[in-house]
């Protein structure tokens, strides 16, 4: 595993999360190396979104450590947190664009907060992000409600890229898209990954997206993460993994995995 050479971007050790009496994560470990695209899968309710929220520092872990770039997410002072949130971009399942702002204003929101107020710079950066995700220029002046589902996902990605983070955390980026839009999104992601040298962690249920884009993937099973390449996971005897990787949907997905 190439994670040994450099310190991993994300390093989770012994993560425990529980809701009431229910144990969601029970000693979960995860390493994500710089420059890889890592996919997280798991059954409904297995704690994928909770894991993402823990990585973002939106939820405090009940035990264990979550480190992004070597910094413990759970122990950040308010000042450190302001610097921390600039190191990653995140998209939520339904886009989570602010509905009272246009796409351009949504993109400019973090830039205004952390970087600059200069109108020319704001305009240039909004143009850049819109161009990066392949949206037509006139989209910038539209409100989220005027966009199609695929465009909302792209606009959300544009906002995630606004501060030029090296790490992207994506929650179901292709959920609800038609297969052609989803394939377009996968291509966009691979393209940005190669151009900008991004590290990407995504939660996805879309097997096509998973196999097309992710070099390594992890399955959350009974509160722990089983990770590896597609071939490694396909050889795992666990019944859920067998059902997932050898089910009818998996057989229909293309064989070649992108490294």
């Amino acid at each position, binding site marked *: 595993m190439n994670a040994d050479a450099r310190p991993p971007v994300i390093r989770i050790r012994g993560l425990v999360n529980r809701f009431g009496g229910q144990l969601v994560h029970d000693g979960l470990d995860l390493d994500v190396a710089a420059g890889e695209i890592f996919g997280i899968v798991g059954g409904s309710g297995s704690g994928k979104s909770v894991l993402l929220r823990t990585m973002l520092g939106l939820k405090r872990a009940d035990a264990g450590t979550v480190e992004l770039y070597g910094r413990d997410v759970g122990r950040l002072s308010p000042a450190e947190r302001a610097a921390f949130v*600039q190191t990653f971009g995140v998209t939520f399942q339904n886009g989570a664009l602010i*509905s*009272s702002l246009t796409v351009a204003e949504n993109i400019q929101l973090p*830039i205004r907060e*952390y*970087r*600059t*107020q*200069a109108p*020319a*710079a704001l305009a*240039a*950066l909004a*143009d*850049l992000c*819109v*161009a*990066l995700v392949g949206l*037509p*220029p*006139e989209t910038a002046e539209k*409100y*989220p*409600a*005027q966009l199609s589902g695929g465009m909302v996902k792209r606009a959300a990605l544009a906002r995630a890229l606004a*501060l*030029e983070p090296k790490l992207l955390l994506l929650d179901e980026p292709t959920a609800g898209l038609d297969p052609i839009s989803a394939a377009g999104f996968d291509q966009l992601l691979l393209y940005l990954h190669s*151009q*900008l040298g991004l590290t990407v962690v995504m939660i996805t249920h879309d097997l096509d997206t998973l196999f097309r884009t992710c070099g390594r993937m992890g399955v959350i099973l009974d509160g722990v993460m089983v990770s590896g390449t597609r071939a490694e996971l396909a050889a795992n005897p666990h019944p859920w993994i067998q059902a997932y990787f050898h089910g009818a949907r998996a057989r229909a997905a293309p064989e070649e995995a992108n490294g």
Partner: protein
Amino acid sequence: MNSSLALDGDGDAWRLVIGGDWSAPAIAQVQERLELLPQRLEGTVVCDWSGAEAPGIGPAWALLSRLATAGHGELTVHHVGAPHHIAWLEELQRRHVAAASSPARAADGPIENLGRWAIAQAGEVRSLADFLGRIVVVSGRALVNPRALRIPSLARHVYETGVTAIPIVSLIAFLISVIVAYLGAQQLTRFGADIFVVDLVAIAVLREMGVLLTAIIVAGRSGSAFAAEIGVMQLNEETDALRAMGMNPIELLVVPRILALVITLPLLTILADAMGLAGGGLLAHLQLHIPWSQFTSRLRDALAPTTFWSGLVKAPVFAALIAIVGTYRGMQVRDSARELGRLTTLAVVQSIFLVILADALFALLFVRLDF
């Protein structure tokens, strides 16, 4: 480290030396440097990136945009020592600009805006007429087929708009009539006309304040709730789901709310009248030492047979106004959370305005009728 940008050369051969911190977080400083570049550049410019530390795509894009603006298409840009993504960014920008080539539409003048406003108003009148028409049709159907009345839903709204409003309506009616009685008592004692406080309170509360206060409280409580509930259902496509299942949202959502309010507002008004008289009586007793028996006998003399009814008859009209405005604004919600907030506010403001306007018309009418 600071970001730097130096331009030298003249005429049509320029050299732009880019140095220092050109990473993404330095965009504010980069932009300041870019502002200093001349408004117009011609010929060729060579950008020397060799001194730049880890240039980010944001600052690089800002520079490319700035050069494109200054060049007016007559500037050739070369890059030396550039990071690998410069060529890619240039290509991306070329495509972006080409796609945006359609010129921005000229801003509208006052005439266009007036026209647009008039069309919007006409559309509003039309959709309101449509909405009212549908309510009439559904109500007519309910007369023939009582199942269309949706009794369970009606009962829930009677409970939510009526029963749960009892404490606040009672309290406010009581307090306001205490205030009116107190102010009246202060003036009337100067003439030794203390006993007329009873007339003042009785007529003010029964004719106007009981019903008006209740209507305003209900507009704030239930008018906004109607608009917000139906608005969220619109955003969640619940109303579309009802239509798709062959059910009529007007019948299921709108008419029960209007009927419920038409039932509850008169009842709340009677309650407010009673609490108001009680408040006036209490103040007369404490402040003016008018005993309760004298208060009630004076009350009987002060009131014409029509006083109570002239207040109460307005209640169903106010109720219908509040409920129609609330549900209508709710049904208008489209697309976004912002619309929901805007239309909910509008529902409350318009329903209070309409209630007061209607009250004024009633006052004129009652004078004419000597009611």
